[in-house]
Each structure stands twice: as C-alpha cells, then as structure tokens.
C-alpha cells in the first residue's frame, strides 16, 4: 500500500471536471485508489462521492493506492493531483 498527503490549492477545491478525469483514470488500474479527508474515505472511481466530500482549498487529503500495480500508479496519481487540484 502506498499513500501521500496533498493540500488542495485550487480555489474551487476538488471540482467536477478534474474529479471526473480522476475517476476515469482510477478505473484503468488494478489498484484501488481512495481519498481520505478526516473520517471519510471514498473510492476515487466515484465522481459524485468525491465531489460530495466537499473538499475545499487548503484542506489536506490522504490518497491511498493499494494493489499489485501500486508502485507504478502512485507517482502518476500524485502528479495528477499536483497538476489539477
């Protein structure tokens, strides 16, 4: 299992379009990618659940990648967060 912490810099937070692209991306891999904020954890493949977390600018989330391809997937997802959120 791999994980990293990320603090949202985008003024709109985890907004619809990049969250949608993330959901699509997450479906490509065998590993389960999940996002945790406080006590709430959601599967990154679920667009509306991600949006429903209400993650705002300045919030820190933990992203976990768990599965056989986690070594390759983790850096891809981390870059995606930096570029989009």
């Amino acid at each position: 299992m791999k994980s990293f912490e990320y603090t949202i810099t985008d003024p709109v937070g985890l907004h619809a379009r990049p969250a949608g692209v993330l959901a699509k991306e997450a479906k490509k891999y065998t590993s389960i990618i999940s996002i945790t904020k406080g006590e709430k954890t959601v599967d990154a493949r679920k667009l509306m659940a991600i949006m429903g977390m209400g993650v705002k600018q300045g919030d820190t989330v933990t992203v976990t990648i768990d599965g056989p391809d986690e070594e390759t997937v983790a850096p891809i997802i981390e870059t995606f967060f930096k570029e989009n959120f």
Partner: protein
Amino acid sequence: MITIQGKGASTGVAIGPLYYYQRAKSTIRRYQIDDTEAEWARFKAAQEKAIEQLGELAEKARVEAGDEAAMLFETHQMMAEDMDYEEAIQAAIQEEKHNAEAAVTDTAAQFADMFATMDDPYMQARAADVKDVSNRIIGILTGVVQGGINSPVPVILAADDLAPSETVQLDKSKILGFVTEGGSGSSHTAILARTMGIPAIIGVGSQMKPEYEGREVILDGNTGNVVVEADEATKARLLLKMEEQKKQQELLNQLKGLPNETKDGHQIRVYCNIGSPDDVPAVLKNDAGGVGLFRSEFLYLNCDDYPSEEYQFEAYKKALSDMGGREVVIRTLDIGADKQIGYFNLPHEENPAMGNRALRVCLNRPEIFHTQIRALYRASAFGKLSIMFPMVTSVWEVREAKKMCDRVKKELTEEGIHFDEDVQVGIMIETPAAALVSDRLAKEVDFFSCGTNDLTQYTLACDRQNDDLGRFFNPHHLAVLRELKMVCDNAHKNGIWVGICGELGADLKLTETFLAIGIDELSVSPRAVLPLRQKIRETNVAAVKDKIIADLLSDEGAIVG
C-alpha cells in the same frame, strides 16, 4: 409600458417578441416491474444513448462556445456513468422493482439533494447538473424530445432558468436574448449568452408573467432592464443604443488589430482611462494599447478606513497582470475638490478646487502616500507599470514625490522584495503653472499626461460643474490649445513623451490638432478607442499641420481666444 428590473448578466440591447421556453412534461409514470433484468437493460441502453448525446453536445459546445462549455458536457458524461449513481438506480430496479424512469427520478433527487445541502455555492450549483443529466436519461426512456423554440421569427427567450444542455441545444439563429427568473451571473445561461454575444437578464423573479408571451420586449443587458411594450420615447432611446452598439461592433470587426496610423504614416498610441481593475476587459475588448489613466481613488472610496498596502497591492497587481504586459499608468490618489472621503477628515474649504487636493494631500500626509507608493512598486513586478502624480504646480513637489519613490525602492531592496527597476514616473499637466514651467518639469520626469478637464477649468478660471457657465467653459479655447502645444514642445525638447488623458482626448474635432502639435498618446474611455482609431486613420497630418500651427500662433483667426 411595463418595466422590470433584473440583473444584467450579458451586455447588449435586443428587441423582439417574448417567448416562453417549452419544456417537456416532467411527470413520469411509476409502476412495479417483474422482469428486472429487462428493465436494467432498458436503463443501460438509455444511459449509453445519453452518454453518446452528451459527447455530441460537447463537440457542438466546443465549436459554438469554446473548450470551457465543452468540458461541462464531458463532466455530465462522467456523472451519467458514476458508479454510485448507477448502483443506486440498479438497486431501485432490481431490489425494489421500480421502473427505470422512477428509479432515475428518485436517484437524481437523492444526489441533487446531497449537492444542494453542501455549504459551498459551487457544489450547490452541481445539483442542477445531476438533474439535467437525469432528465436526459428519462427523456430517452420515455421517448419525449426536449422542448425547443417553435417560432418562425427570432425571439427573446424567457424561462425559469435554463439547464446547460437546454441552452446549447437551442437554435441560436432564433434567439435575440435571454430573460430568466432565477440564475446567477455565473450560471450557464449567463456564460453562454456572453460567449454568444447576446444580452441576458437574470433574476427577474415573478415580475415576468406568462401573459407577456408574444408581446414586444426590449432587453438592456447593460442596465438589467426588461421593458414590455415600451412607449415611443423609451423605444427610440433603446433602439439608438442598440444601433450604437452595432456600430461599435462593426468598427471593431473592421479596425481590430490595425495600427493607430495616419495616412502619412504617423503613429500615435491610443490608451484607456479606467477606474478599477474590473474595467480591464473593456480595455482589451476595444483593442486599446494600454491604460493611460488608472484612477486609484476607487480603492479609497470603497473603504471605511485607509486601504492597506496589501489591499492596494492586490488591485494593482490584478490590473497589471490582466493587461498582460501592456503599459498601465496608475495615477496616485486624487481626492479633495469634488471628491471627498469621510475618514480623511479634510476640513471644509471655501474654495476646494484651489485647496488641499491630490498630490498636495499626499505630500502633506506622507504616511498615506508611502503606503500607496509601496503597493505600486510591489505590483510593478507583475506587469508594465508607470506612476503618475496629479495636480502638480512646482518642480519641488515633483522632487519631493520622487524622493518617496526612492525611499520605497530602497526599503524594498533591503527587504528583498522584487520590483521593476524601470517603472516610469510622470506627472499630470492640469494647471497653467505646470504648463508654463513644463520645460523645467520635463527634466524631472519620464512623461507628461495632460488632464484637460482641470487644465481648462484652471486656465479659464471657470467651474465646469456650474451649469450657468456653459458658454464660458470652452475646452477648445485658444489658451488651452496653446498650453498643450507648449507642453508638447517642452516635452519633446527633453526627449520625453506626452499624452492627453482628459475628455478632450476623445474629441474627434481636435484629433487633427493633437496630431499636428505632436501628442504621442491619447487616453480615452474604452468605447472611444475605435472611433478615434478610425479618425486617426483618415487623417493626413502633413497636409494640415502647417495651417493648424499657424492658427494656434496667430493673433487673429479661426480659433476662439
């Protein structure tokens, strides 16, 4: 005539018959099903069809309104195939044996509720997206086509609020403008209206009544007014406004990107006067080369106390970065006289025009000046800034003001804060004294900008706000024009540039004169840029120059003196 006040969300004027958007009936049949597998397959087929349609809409939106509009439909596609959404529908069909239409309706309500109750306005607005996607799937399931415009002539379209997919599917050639009961300036209807360049008025609420359907309405997107069956005078006025905007648009199409160059190859810079960073889009839209006068007073007028360095810095930085490297001349605080601010506690004066105003206030209250100059230099790192001091009469004032600039530059260097070393410093020429000693002032600064409103008032000793003095207040007076020529000559002798930022700059009757005396820059309101460019391009300076200069110097002749 009925006038309805809404909020203008997209500018322009439009006239036409009012038409209410026809929406497909949203009541659906509910029933229990037996064959859950067949019903689930029916949903999957409708979902697939919806995703396909949304893909087509994304492409249509990309062509009509750009990438941002297209992204919206791509997001809708993703919502349509969201796992939780799909699972909830599946459970409703397979476990509760609801028909697909009911399953989608209930699931949509559940997700829309989740978004609507979030505390973030962006997320709240997503509730409309979920409903929009779901209505599309329901429409496919029931075979009902979404409503459009069933009118042979173009109309003003009224609706409670249009969903993004509804807006993009409309036949654009049939729409002259939008009126919506609800909506916000950042709603999809507003955004699409702006991209399409047609007026939109939002938030009219229940003032808009179905019985107005078919009547003639006029929308004024600039004021947010909707006029139903306008009287003759109102109609004439608004039609004139529409005509003007049409002309402006034609000018823009014709002249955008062309140089401000006379027939004989003489170029002049045409800049804009603005009062806040919000005016920058108008500057860019009218294709001006820069900002020749940014009045910084708004920062002070919008506050209940002296605006902080940080607050000012952000505003200057925004204007500079939005102008994308084009020059922005920011005038330091110009209050006093007709512009008073309570918290400055300036004592009442019998003769404020001659009183404690503009640079005088700044030199008398250096702490206020210091804050502004610091904010300006800090912002200079984000674009091409020039600083201009108003209401100068003597050389020593300019030297004292420049000392403040030097002090600030030294402080910022010591604090390791980056700024532009090449910020130009200039002054306004708006007093006869400044015009008369402009040869000496030119040695102190990088540029002059003539404020013709005050220059005329001080030169002619005539209050421009006194209605009884109309015939005495003549900005075309020989004395004013001679001052301008003198200022030009003294500027050029010393190798600095000179502009005009008063209302006279946009006076097309004087454009030839300004070109003849060698003005380098004219700063005018955004809407005056293109008419001025047109006038400049029609002028042949060489052909008229000698006669104009002779007239200016003559002790008798055409110019009123």
